[in-house]
């Protein structure tokens, strides 16, 4: 072969090494990006997080000796559509669907209830980005902001 002399052999080795590095880097970038993309777009993490967080919030409110209104912000990717349901014994988070909640694949977390505090079941639709967790007169529920229900403003930092 005409170009297969000592110099071109050395060039070939360097070229081989460069190509190998490029292919390896490409594979690496694809693998890492797909792993990160899967982590970000996976709704199971958000379902687990919100079901646990809200259930523990309701659990803690059972120990309350007074009334509370807590503004709760939901923050997940826009492409994700989740429905949040408060049941008498648990908080259920599901992917949004037209079928009834009890027939959907649910991610739920139980809280400790008792007969002294009543929990009013409610469903928070996917379009809601913030709602109120209300403990009022031994009753816990979620309320969507409206003319009647005003969400509390965050307290301004004092001196």
């Amino acid at each position: 072969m005409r170009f297969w002399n000592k110099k071109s052999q050395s060039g070939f080795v360097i070229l081989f090494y460069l190509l190998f590095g490029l292919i390896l880097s490409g594979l690496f970038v694809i693998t890492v990006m797909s792993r990160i993309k899967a982590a970000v777009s996976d709704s199971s993490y958000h379902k687990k997080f919100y079901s646990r967080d809200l259930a523990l919030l309701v659990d803690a409110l059972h120990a309350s000796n007074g009334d509370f209104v807590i503004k709760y912000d939901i923050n997940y990717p826009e492409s994700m559509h989740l429905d949040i349901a408060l049941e008498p014994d648990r908080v259920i988070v599901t992917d949004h669907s037209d079928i009834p909640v009890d027939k959907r694949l649910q991610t739920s977390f139980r809280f400790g209830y008792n007969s002294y505090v009543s929990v009013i079941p409610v469903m928070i639709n996917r379009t809601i980005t913030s709602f109120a967790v209300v403990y009022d007169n031994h009753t816990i529920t979620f309320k969507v902001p409206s003319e009647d229900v005003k969400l509390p403003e965050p307290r301004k930092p004092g001196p």
Partner: protein
Amino acid sequence: MNMRKPYKKSYRTLGKKGLGAAELLEHIPYILLTIAVLIGIFVLVNTHVNLSVNIKPLQVEVLFNRIMYSPNSIMYTDNITGVVYPGVIDFDKFTNTTLDNAIKYSYEKHISAKLELYDKEKQLIKTAYLNNVWYNRLEPLASARIKGPGSARMYYKSLPVVYRENNVNQPGFLRISIIIPT
């Protein structure tokens, strides 16, 4: 091409083909190093992309606060004002029934706890359980720190309290052992 010069002498005896092969061979450590670095970065990324939600310590805190502050739990509550006195245990309410009525779960294998009340001499004077059945079932596994599905983890909390017996406040200690199934 300068990189060949230092090796020129040692490769003097090699032929054309041998020289090419030797150059390929001398790149193997670099290739291995590149692979090792990339694997290292991948492992780091995987470690920091954490999709698990571990809330067990938070569950322990919530349960502890429910026991300590809840008006219908074991703490002394003023019948007239309804004010709860956290840290003042009503000795008559320090029972399994009170705890099970105050904190119920729709699934039995959930959180369970043992509350041991000691007097000022650190002598055990009363014990109460939340979810007694599952506490006794899971305690051996949790104490032995056996891991895996079906096992449990135990958390402890201990604090000085006052227990109110026959309208008299007495100093004491409360030790709470909380078991959370995995």
